[in-house]
Protein backbone atom coordinates (compact mmCIF):
# COMPACT_ATOMS: atom_id res chain seq x y z
CA UNK A 1 0.00 0.00 0.00
CA UNK A 2 1.39 3.41 -0.78
CA UNK A 3 2.52 5.84 1.86
CA UNK A 4 0.69 9.12 2.13
CA UNK A 5 2.97 12.09 2.69
CA UNK A 6 1.63 14.25 5.52
CA UNK A 7 4.49 16.72 5.13
CA UNK A 8 8.11 16.59 4.14
CA UNK A 9 9.06 14.79 7.33
CA UNK A 10 6.13 12.50 8.07
CA UNK A 11 4.35 9.75 6.15
CA UNK A 12 1.21 7.84 6.94
CA UNK A 13 0.56 4.20 6.06
CA UNK A 14 -2.49 2.00 6.28
CA UNK A 15 -1.90 -1.32 7.96
CA UNK A 16 -4.24 -4.06 6.79
CA UNK A 17 -4.52 -7.44 8.54
CA UNK A 18 -2.38 -10.04 6.84
CA UNK A 19 -0.12 -7.46 5.23
CA UNK A 20 3.15 -6.98 7.00
CA UNK A 21 5.29 -3.89 6.85
CA UNK A 22 8.83 -3.32 7.99
CA UNK A 23 10.06 -0.11 9.52
CA UNK A 24 13.13 1.13 11.28
CA UNK A 25 12.87 0.68 15.01
CA UNK A 26 11.72 3.78 16.80
CA UNK A 27 10.45 5.39 13.62
CA UNK A 28 6.79 5.18 14.56
CA UNK A 29 5.44 8.59 15.50
CA UNK A 30 1.82 7.79 16.18
CA UNK A 31 -0.82 5.24 15.34
CA UNK A 32 -4.53 4.59 15.37
CA UNK A 33 -6.19 1.25 15.80
CA UNK A 34 -4.69 -2.03 16.93
CA UNK A 35 -1.19 -2.22 15.58
CA UNK A 36 1.70 -4.20 17.03
CA UNK A 37 5.37 -3.43 16.61
CA UNK A 38 7.63 -6.43 16.94
CA UNK A 39 11.39 -6.14 16.71
CA UNK A 40 12.45 -8.23 13.79
CA UNK A 41 15.03 -10.68 15.06
CA UNK A 42 16.48 -11.31 11.63
CA UNK A 43 16.32 -7.69 10.57
CA UNK A 44 14.00 -8.29 7.65
CA UNK A 45 13.20 -11.13 5.32
CA UNK A 46 14.94 -14.26 4.24
CA UNK A 47 15.05 -16.01 7.61
CA UNK A 48 18.30 -16.80 9.39
CA UNK A 49 20.31 -17.00 6.19
CA UNK A 50 19.09 -13.57 5.22
CA UNK A 51 20.14 -12.29 8.63
CA UNK A 52 23.60 -13.83 8.32
CA UNK A 53 23.94 -12.37 4.85
CA UNK A 54 23.10 -8.91 6.12
CA UNK A 55 25.42 -9.24 9.11
CA UNK A 56 28.30 -10.25 6.87
CA UNK A 57 27.52 -7.47 4.47
CA UNK A 58 27.22 -5.00 7.36
CA UNK A 59 23.82 -4.04 5.98
CA UNK A 60 21.80 -5.06 9.00
CA UNK A 61 19.66 -2.37 10.43
CA UNK A 62 17.34 -2.53 13.41
CA UNK A 63 13.98 -3.22 11.84
CA UNK A 64 10.62 -4.03 13.33
CA UNK A 65 7.61 -5.59 11.71
CA UNK A 66 4.36 -3.67 11.80
CA UNK A 67 1.17 -5.72 11.79
CA UNK A 68 -2.47 -5.29 12.67
CA UNK A 69 -5.14 -2.97 11.43
CA UNK A 70 -5.00 0.79 11.59
CA UNK A 71 -3.03 3.82 10.50
CA UNK A 72 0.60 4.42 11.39
CA UNK A 73 2.58 7.65 11.06
CA UNK A 74 6.31 7.29 10.44
CA UNK A 75 9.15 9.77 10.71
CA UNK A 76 12.62 9.75 12.17
CA UNK A 77 15.08 12.24 13.55
CA UNK A 78 13.62 15.14 11.62
CA UNK A 79 14.93 13.74 8.35
CA UNK A 80 13.21 14.42 5.08
CA UNK A 81 11.32 11.51 3.65
CA UNK A 82 11.01 10.42 0.06
CA UNK A 83 8.38 7.88 -0.90
CA UNK A 84 9.37 5.65 -3.80
CA UNK A 85 6.79 3.41 -5.47
CA UNK A 86 8.27 0.36 -7.10
CA UNK A 87 6.55 -1.48 -9.90
CA UNK A 88 8.73 -4.51 -10.40
CA UNK A 89 12.10 -2.79 -10.55
CA UNK A 90 14.88 -2.95 -8.00
CA UNK A 91 15.74 -0.14 -5.60
CA UNK A 92 19.33 0.18 -4.39
CA UNK A 93 19.58 1.96 -1.07
CA UNK A 94 21.66 1.94 2.09
CA UNK A 95 19.94 -0.02 4.84
CA UNK A 96 20.12 2.78 7.39
CA UNK A 97 18.21 5.08 5.08
CA UNK A 98 15.18 2.79 5.09
CA UNK A 99 12.35 4.28 7.12
CA UNK A 100 9.63 1.80 6.20
CA UNK A 101 8.73 -0.51 3.36
CA UNK A 102 6.07 -2.97 2.31
CA UNK A 103 6.53 -6.54 3.41
CA UNK A 104 5.75 -7.60 -0.14
CA UNK A 105 9.07 -6.25 -1.35
CA UNK A 106 11.92 -8.68 -1.61
CA UNK A 107 14.91 -7.62 0.43
CA UNK A 108 18.45 -8.50 -0.52
CA UNK A 109 22.05 -7.37 -0.35
CA UNK A 110 24.27 -6.63 -3.27
CA UNK A 111 28.04 -6.66 -3.51
CA UNK A 112 29.29 -3.37 -4.85
CA UNK A 113 31.96 -5.14 -6.84
CA UNK A 114 29.30 -6.84 -8.91
CA UNK A 115 28.46 -3.47 -10.38
CA UNK A 116 31.59 -1.98 -11.78
CA UNK A 117 34.16 -4.41 -10.41
CA UNK A 118 37.04 -2.92 -8.47
CA UNK A 119 35.82 0.58 -9.17
CA UNK A 120 32.50 -0.37 -7.60
CA UNK A 121 34.34 -1.31 -4.43
CA UNK A 122 36.31 1.92 -4.51
CA UNK A 123 33.02 3.72 -4.96
CA UNK A 124 31.61 2.00 -1.91
CA UNK A 125 34.57 3.19 0.12
CA UNK A 126 34.43 6.74 -1.19
CA UNK A 127 30.72 7.15 -0.65
CA UNK A 128 30.84 5.57 2.77
CA UNK A 129 28.37 2.96 1.63
CA UNK A 130 30.76 0.14 2.27
CA UNK A 131 31.15 -2.86 0.05
CA UNK A 132 27.50 -3.83 0.11
CA UNK A 133 24.19 -2.16 -0.39
CA UNK A 134 20.60 -3.21 0.19
CA UNK A 135 18.20 -4.00 -2.62
CA UNK A 136 14.42 -4.01 -2.55
CA UNK A 137 12.57 -5.62 -5.42
CA UNK A 138 8.95 -6.08 -6.36
CA UNK A 139 5.73 -4.13 -6.24
CA UNK A 140 5.24 -1.80 -3.30
CA UNK A 141 6.29 1.39 -1.58
CA UNK A 142 9.45 2.39 0.22
CA UNK A 143 9.94 5.41 2.44
CA UNK A 144 13.56 6.54 2.35
CA UNK A 145 15.19 9.08 4.67
CA UNK A 146 17.54 11.81 3.55
CA UNK A 147 19.25 14.79 5.12
CA UNK A 148 17.71 17.83 3.52
CA UNK A 149 15.18 17.69 0.71
CA UNK A 150 15.30 15.07 -2.00
CA UNK A 151 15.08 15.51 -5.75
CA UNK A 152 14.43 12.75 -8.23
CA UNK A 153 16.54 12.84 -11.39
CA UNK A 154 15.54 10.61 -14.30
CA UNK A 155 18.21 8.62 -16.08
CA UNK A 156 17.64 7.98 -19.78
CA UNK A 157 19.77 5.75 -22.02
CA UNK A 158 21.89 8.36 -23.72
CA UNK A 159 21.97 10.92 -20.94
CA UNK A 160 24.12 9.69 -18.09
CA UNK A 161 24.03 11.74 -14.94
CA UNK A 162 26.82 12.62 -12.53
CA UNK A 163 26.05 12.72 -8.83
CA UNK A 164 28.11 13.71 -5.82
CA UNK A 165 28.64 10.43 -3.96
CA UNK A 166 27.83 12.07 -0.64
CA UNK A 167 24.55 13.46 -1.92
CA UNK A 168 23.51 10.15 -3.46
CA UNK A 169 20.53 8.60 -1.68
CA UNK A 170 19.21 5.74 -3.80
CA UNK A 171 18.52 4.68 -7.34
CA UNK A 172 16.19 2.29 -9.10
CA UNK A 173 15.75 0.80 -12.52
CA UNK A 174 18.19 -0.74 -14.93
CA UNK A 175 21.09 1.50 -14.11
CA UNK A 176 24.81 0.99 -14.41
CA UNK A 177 26.92 3.12 -12.16
CA UNK A 178 30.57 3.80 -12.06
CA UNK A 179 32.80 6.11 -10.16
CA UNK A 180 34.40 8.70 -12.34
CA UNK A 181 37.43 10.47 -11.06
CA UNK A 182 38.75 13.85 -11.94
CA UNK A 183 41.90 13.57 -9.93
CA UNK A 184 44.68 15.89 -10.92
CA UNK A 185 47.91 17.12 -9.49
CA UNK A 186 45.95 19.76 -7.57
CA UNK A 187 44.24 17.07 -5.52
CA UNK A 188 47.64 15.55 -4.71
CA UNK A 189 48.88 18.78 -3.21
CA UNK A 190 45.65 19.39 -1.34
CA UNK A 191 44.32 22.11 -3.61
CA UNK A 192 41.57 20.06 -5.20
CA UNK A 193 38.12 21.28 -6.02
CA UNK A 194 36.62 18.86 -3.53
CA UNK A 195 34.69 17.25 -6.35
CA UNK A 196 37.27 14.72 -7.42
CA UNK A 197 34.91 11.76 -7.26
CA UNK A 198 31.59 11.61 -9.00
CA UNK A 199 29.10 8.86 -9.45
CA UNK A 200 28.14 8.37 -13.06
CA UNK A 201 24.80 6.67 -13.57
CA UNK A 202 23.64 5.54 -16.98
CA UNK A 203 20.82 3.39 -18.26
CA UNK A 204 17.11 3.63 -17.61
CA UNK A 205 15.71 4.62 -14.24
CA UNK A 206 15.95 7.35 -11.65
CA UNK A 207 18.36 8.50 -8.99
CA UNK A 208 17.47 10.29 -5.77
CA UNK A 209 19.77 13.03 -4.56
CA UNK A 210 19.64 14.89 -1.25
CA UNK A 211 20.29 18.59 -0.87
CA UNK A 212 23.09 17.99 1.57
CA UNK A 213 26.41 16.24 1.69
CA UNK A 214 25.80 15.04 5.19
CA UNK A 215 25.34 11.37 5.92
CA UNK A 216 22.48 10.19 8.08
Amino acid at each position, binding site marked *: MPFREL*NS*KMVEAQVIPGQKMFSQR*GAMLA*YRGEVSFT*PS*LTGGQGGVMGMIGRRVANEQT*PLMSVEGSGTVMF*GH*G*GHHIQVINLTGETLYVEADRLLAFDGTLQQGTMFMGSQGGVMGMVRGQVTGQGLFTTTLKGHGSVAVMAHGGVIELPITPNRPIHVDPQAYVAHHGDVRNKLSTALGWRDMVGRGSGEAFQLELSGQGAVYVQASEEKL
Partner: protein
Amino acid sequence: MNFGPVTGGPGAPTVFDPHSLPSDDNVNAYTFCVELKGSQWFLQKGKMIAYYGRIDFNGVGNGRFDRLLRTSFHSPMHAADWVVAEGQGKMLLADRAFDVNSYDLDDGNLTIRSGNLLAYQPSLALKQSIVPGFLTLIGTGKFVAASNGPVVFMEPPLRVDPQALVGWADCPSPCHHYDHGYMSGVIGGLRSLTGIGGSSGEEHQFEFVGAGTVLLQSSEMLMAEQAIGTVGAGAEAAGVPGAGYGGGHGQQGPLGQLGVPRMPGQLGDIQRRLGL
Protein backbone atom coordinates in the same frame (compact mmCIF):
# COMPACT_ATOMS: atom_id res chain seq x y z
CA MET B 1 5.43 35.09 -1.75
CA ASN B 2 3.43 38.16 -0.97
CA PHE B 3 5.56 39.88 1.61
CA GLY B 4 5.71 42.97 -0.54
CA PRO B 5 8.90 44.58 0.69
CA VAL B 6 12.04 45.48 -1.22
CA THR B 7 13.40 42.66 -3.31
CA GLY B 8 16.87 42.81 -4.72
CA GLY B 9 15.81 41.41 -8.06
CA PRO B 10 14.51 38.03 -9.12
CA GLY B 11 15.76 35.24 -6.95
CA ALA B 12 17.51 37.56 -4.55
CA PRO B 13 16.73 37.42 -0.83
CA THR B 14 14.01 39.73 0.39
CA VAL B 15 15.30 42.62 2.41
CA PHE B 16 13.16 43.65 5.35
CA ASP B 17 13.11 46.89 7.25
CA PRO B 18 11.16 47.85 10.38
CA HIS B 19 8.12 48.77 8.30
CA SER B 20 8.04 45.84 5.94
CA LEU B 21 8.42 43.21 8.65
CA PRO B 22 5.08 41.58 9.32
CA SER B 23 3.30 42.31 12.56
CA ASP B 24 2.70 39.22 14.69
CA ASP B 25 3.14 36.95 11.72
CA ASN B 26 5.67 34.62 10.14
CA VAL B 27 8.54 36.17 8.17
CA ASN B 28 9.30 32.75 6.75
CA ALA B 29 8.72 29.23 7.94
CA TYR B 30 11.52 29.51 10.48
CA THR B 31 11.13 33.03 11.79
CA PHE B 32 8.29 34.81 13.51
CA CYS B 33 8.01 38.55 14.01
CA VAL B 34 6.33 40.00 17.09
CA GLU B 35 5.35 43.67 17.16
CA LEU B 36 5.41 45.38 20.50
CA LYS B 37 3.50 48.65 20.97
CA GLY B 38 4.13 49.30 24.60
CA SER B 39 2.80 45.83 25.24
CA GLN B 40 4.49 42.87 26.86
CA TRP B 41 5.28 39.36 25.71
CA PHE B 42 6.71 36.46 27.62
CA LEU B 43 9.71 35.04 25.85
CA GLN B 44 11.82 31.99 26.46
CA LYS B 45 15.48 32.85 26.83
CA GLY B 46 17.61 32.56 23.76
CA LYS B 47 14.78 32.47 21.25
CA MET B 48 15.04 36.12 20.21
CA ILE B 49 17.39 36.45 17.25
CA ALA B 50 17.05 40.15 16.38
CA TYR B 51 14.96 43.19 17.15
CA TYR B 52 14.23 46.70 15.94
CA GLY B 53 13.24 49.54 18.24
CA ARG B 54 13.48 49.93 21.99
CA ILE B 55 12.74 46.67 23.67
CA ASP B 56 13.70 45.77 27.20
CA PHE B 57 14.24 42.21 28.25
CA ASN B 58 13.89 41.57 31.96
CA GLY B 59 14.02 38.33 33.82
CA VAL B 60 10.74 37.31 35.34
CA GLY B 61 12.30 37.33 38.78
CA ASN B 62 12.14 41.11 38.60
CA GLY B 63 10.00 42.75 41.25
CA ARG B 64 8.22 45.08 38.82
CA PHE B 65 6.48 42.18 37.22
CA ASP B 66 4.82 40.91 40.37
CA ARG B 67 1.34 41.71 39.14
CA LEU B 68 1.97 40.39 35.67
CA LEU B 69 3.38 37.17 37.04
CA ARG B 70 0.44 36.74 39.36
CA THR B 71 -1.93 36.60 36.40
CA SER B 72 0.04 34.94 33.67
CA PHE B 73 3.02 33.03 34.99
CA HIS B 74 2.41 30.12 37.30
CA SER B 75 5.51 28.13 36.74
CA PRO B 76 8.11 29.11 39.32
CA MET B 77 10.44 26.30 38.28
CA HIS B 78 10.70 27.81 34.83
CA ALA B 79 11.20 31.36 35.98
CA ALA B 80 14.89 31.29 35.17
CA ASP B 81 14.16 30.43 31.54
CA TRP B 82 11.71 33.19 30.78
CA VAL B 83 12.03 36.90 30.24
CA VAL B 84 9.50 39.63 29.70
CA ALA B 85 9.96 41.70 26.55
CA GLU B 86 8.39 45.15 26.63
CA GLY B 87 8.72 48.36 24.69
CA GLN B 88 8.25 49.53 21.13
CA GLY B 89 9.48 47.67 18.11
CA LYS B 90 9.60 44.40 16.32
CA MET B 91 11.47 41.32 17.41
CA LEU B 92 12.26 38.16 15.50
CA LEU B 93 11.95 34.77 17.10
CA ALA B 94 13.49 31.52 15.91
CA ASP B 95 14.60 28.23 17.36
CA ARG B 96 17.08 25.63 16.04
CA ALA B 97 15.94 26.17 12.43
CA PHE B 98 12.66 24.55 13.41
CA ASP B 99 9.40 25.50 11.80
CA VAL B 100 7.82 28.27 13.85
CA ASN B 101 4.12 28.95 14.02
CA SER B 102 1.73 31.05 16.02
CA TYR B 103 -1.44 29.67 17.50
CA ASP B 104 -4.48 31.57 18.70
CA LEU B 105 -6.33 30.40 21.74
CA ASP B 106 -9.84 31.65 22.30
CA ASP B 107 -10.77 30.89 25.87
CA GLY B 108 -9.05 27.59 25.34
CA ASN B 109 -6.25 25.45 26.65
CA LEU B 110 -3.22 23.87 25.09
CA THR B 111 -0.44 21.83 26.61
CA ILE B 112 2.91 21.93 24.88
CA ARG B 113 6.41 20.50 25.31
CA SER B 114 8.27 23.09 27.33
CA GLY B 115 11.21 23.27 24.96
CA ASN B 116 8.95 24.01 21.99
CA LEU B 117 7.25 27.09 23.37
CA LEU B 118 8.98 30.30 22.30
CA ALA B 119 6.75 33.14 23.44
CA TYR B 120 3.23 34.01 24.51
CA GLN B 121 1.02 37.00 25.21
CA PRO B 122 0.41 37.81 28.85
CA SER B 123 -3.32 37.45 28.25
CA LEU B 124 -2.58 33.76 28.43
CA ALA B 125 -1.66 32.08 31.68
CA LEU B 126 1.28 29.70 31.64
CA LYS B 127 1.04 26.78 34.02
CA GLN B 128 3.13 23.73 34.58
CA SER B 129 1.37 20.63 33.29
CA ILE B 130 0.81 17.61 35.50
CA VAL B 131 2.70 15.73 32.81
CA PRO B 132 6.36 16.52 33.47
CA GLY B 133 8.11 18.38 30.72
CA PHE B 134 4.99 20.06 29.46
CA LEU B 135 3.48 23.48 29.98
CA THR B 136 -0.19 24.38 29.75
CA LEU B 137 -1.46 27.68 28.37
CA ILE B 138 -4.93 28.76 29.37
CA GLY B 139 -6.94 31.75 28.27
CA THR B 140 -7.25 33.92 25.18
CA GLY B 141 -4.31 35.09 23.15
CA LYS B 142 -1.47 34.21 20.84
CA PHE B 143 1.56 32.06 21.41
CA VAL B 144 4.48 31.01 19.26
CA ALA B 145 5.80 27.47 19.17
CA ALA B 146 8.48 25.59 17.25
CA SER B 147 8.27 22.14 15.73
CA ASN B 148 10.58 20.00 13.66
CA GLY B 149 8.77 20.14 10.34
CA PRO B 150 5.23 21.39 10.05
CA VAL B 151 2.92 20.42 12.88
CA VAL B 152 0.42 17.71 12.04
CA PHE B 153 -2.93 17.91 13.81
CA MET B 154 -4.63 14.64 14.69
CA GLU B 155 -7.89 13.71 16.33
CA PRO B 156 -7.99 11.13 19.09
CA PRO B 157 -8.16 8.20 19.63
CA LEU B 158 -4.48 8.10 18.94
CA ARG B 159 -1.27 6.75 20.39
CA VAL B 160 1.83 8.86 19.99
CA ASP B 161 5.53 8.23 20.39
CA PRO B 162 6.67 10.45 23.27
CA GLN B 163 9.32 12.12 21.12
CA ALA B 164 6.86 12.97 18.37
CA LEU B 165 4.42 14.70 20.67
CA VAL B 166 4.42 18.49 20.48
CA GLY B 167 1.32 19.05 22.54
CA TRP B 168 -2.40 18.65 22.79
CA ALA B 169 -5.55 20.68 23.31
CA ASP B 170 -8.66 19.71 25.21
CA CYS B 171 -7.81 16.01 25.52
CA PRO B 172 -9.00 15.19 29.00
CA SER B 173 -6.92 12.16 29.79
CA PRO B 174 -3.47 11.82 28.32
CA CYS B 175 -2.01 8.61 29.64
CA HIS B 176 0.79 6.14 29.12
CA HIS B 177 0.31 3.07 27.00
CA TYR B 178 2.64 0.11 27.23
CA ASP B 179 2.78 -2.43 24.47
CA HIS B 180 5.15 -5.26 25.08
CA GLY B 181 3.14 -8.09 23.59
CA TYR B 182 6.15 -9.54 21.85
CA MET B 183 7.80 -9.99 25.23
CA SER B 184 5.25 -12.63 26.26
CA GLY B 185 5.03 -16.26 25.26
CA VAL B 186 7.91 -18.68 24.89
CA ILE B 187 9.74 -16.81 22.16
CA GLY B 188 9.06 -13.54 23.93
CA GLY B 189 10.42 -14.99 27.15
CA LEU B 190 13.60 -15.98 25.36
CA ARG B 191 13.77 -12.50 23.91
CA SER B 192 13.49 -10.75 27.25
CA LEU B 193 15.86 -13.19 28.96
CA THR B 194 18.62 -13.13 26.37
CA GLY B 195 18.07 -9.70 24.93
CA ILE B 196 18.29 -11.21 21.44
CA GLY B 197 16.29 -9.22 18.99
CA GLY B 198 16.37 -6.10 21.08
CA SER B 199 13.38 -3.91 21.64
CA SER B 200 11.28 -2.25 18.99
CA GLY B 201 11.56 1.12 20.70
CA GLU B 202 7.80 1.42 20.48
CA GLU B 203 6.82 -0.18 23.76
CA HIS B 204 5.76 3.08 25.28
CA GLN B 205 3.37 5.61 23.85
CA PHE B 206 1.20 8.42 25.05
CA GLU B 207 -2.45 7.59 24.50
CA PHE B 208 -5.11 10.19 23.84
CA VAL B 209 -8.84 9.54 23.92
CA GLY B 210 -11.91 11.75 23.95
CA ALA B 211 -12.49 15.05 22.25
CA GLY B 212 -9.53 17.23 21.40
CA THR B 213 -6.59 17.71 19.10
CA VAL B 214 -3.09 16.25 19.26
CA LEU B 215 -0.11 18.05 17.73
CA LEU B 216 2.66 15.95 16.21
CA GLN B 217 6.08 16.54 14.72
CA SER B 218 8.77 14.38 13.24
CA SER B 219 10.80 13.06 16.14
CA GLU B 220 13.82 14.99 17.08
CA MET B 221 17.17 13.88 18.44
CA LEU B 222 19.41 16.68 17.34
CA MET B 223 19.41 18.74 20.48
CA ALA B 224 19.00 17.85 24.11
CA GLU B 225 15.74 18.84 25.70
CA GLN B 226 16.11 21.66 28.14
CA ALA B 227 15.70 20.51 31.68
CA ILE B 228 12.90 22.84 32.54
CA GLY B 229 10.20 20.26 32.81
CA THR B 230 11.20 18.84 36.12
CA VAL B 231 9.63 19.56 39.42
CA GLY B 232 12.17 21.19 41.64
CA ALA B 233 13.36 20.65 45.13
CA GLY B 234 10.79 21.28 47.77
CA ALA B 235 8.13 19.64 45.65
CA GLU B 236 9.43 16.15 46.13
CA ALA B 237 6.28 15.02 47.80
CA ALA B 238 4.39 11.85 47.12
CA GLY B 239 1.96 12.14 44.28
CA VAL B 240 3.86 14.76 42.34
CA PRO B 241 4.78 13.27 39.00
CA GLY B 242 8.34 13.95 38.08
CA ALA B 243 9.43 14.55 41.65
CA GLY B 244 12.75 12.89 42.25
CA TYR B 245 13.46 12.98 38.56
CA GLY B 246 15.01 16.39 38.83
CA GLY B 247 18.49 16.37 37.37
CA GLY B 248 17.73 13.11 35.67
CA HIS B 249 20.08 14.03 32.90
CA GLY B 250 22.18 11.33 31.41
CA GLN B 251 19.86 8.71 32.86
CA GLN B 252 19.75 5.92 30.36
CA GLY B 253 17.37 3.03 30.38
CA PRO B 254 17.53 0.04 28.06
CA LEU B 255 15.96 2.22 25.42
CA GLY B 256 18.74 4.70 25.95
CA GLN B 257 21.22 2.14 24.73
CA LEU B 258 19.34 2.14 21.46
CA GLY B 259 19.89 5.83 21.14
CA VAL B 260 16.45 6.75 22.40
CA PRO B 261 16.95 9.58 24.85
CA ARG B 262 15.17 9.51 28.16
CA MET B 263 12.35 11.99 27.83
CA PRO B 264 11.20 14.07 30.73
CA GLY B 265 7.77 12.55 30.47
CA GLN B 266 8.98 9.02 30.42
CA LEU B 267 8.50 6.83 33.43
CA GLY B 268 10.96 4.26 34.62
CA ASP B 269 12.22 1.37 32.59
CA ILE B 270 9.51 -0.89 31.28
CA GLN B 271 11.05 -4.03 32.65
CA ARG B 272 11.12 -2.54 36.11
CA ARG B 273 7.62 -1.15 35.79
CA LEU B 274 6.11 -4.39 34.67
CA GLY B 275 8.32 -6.59 36.80
CA LEU B 276 9.80 -8.32 33.79
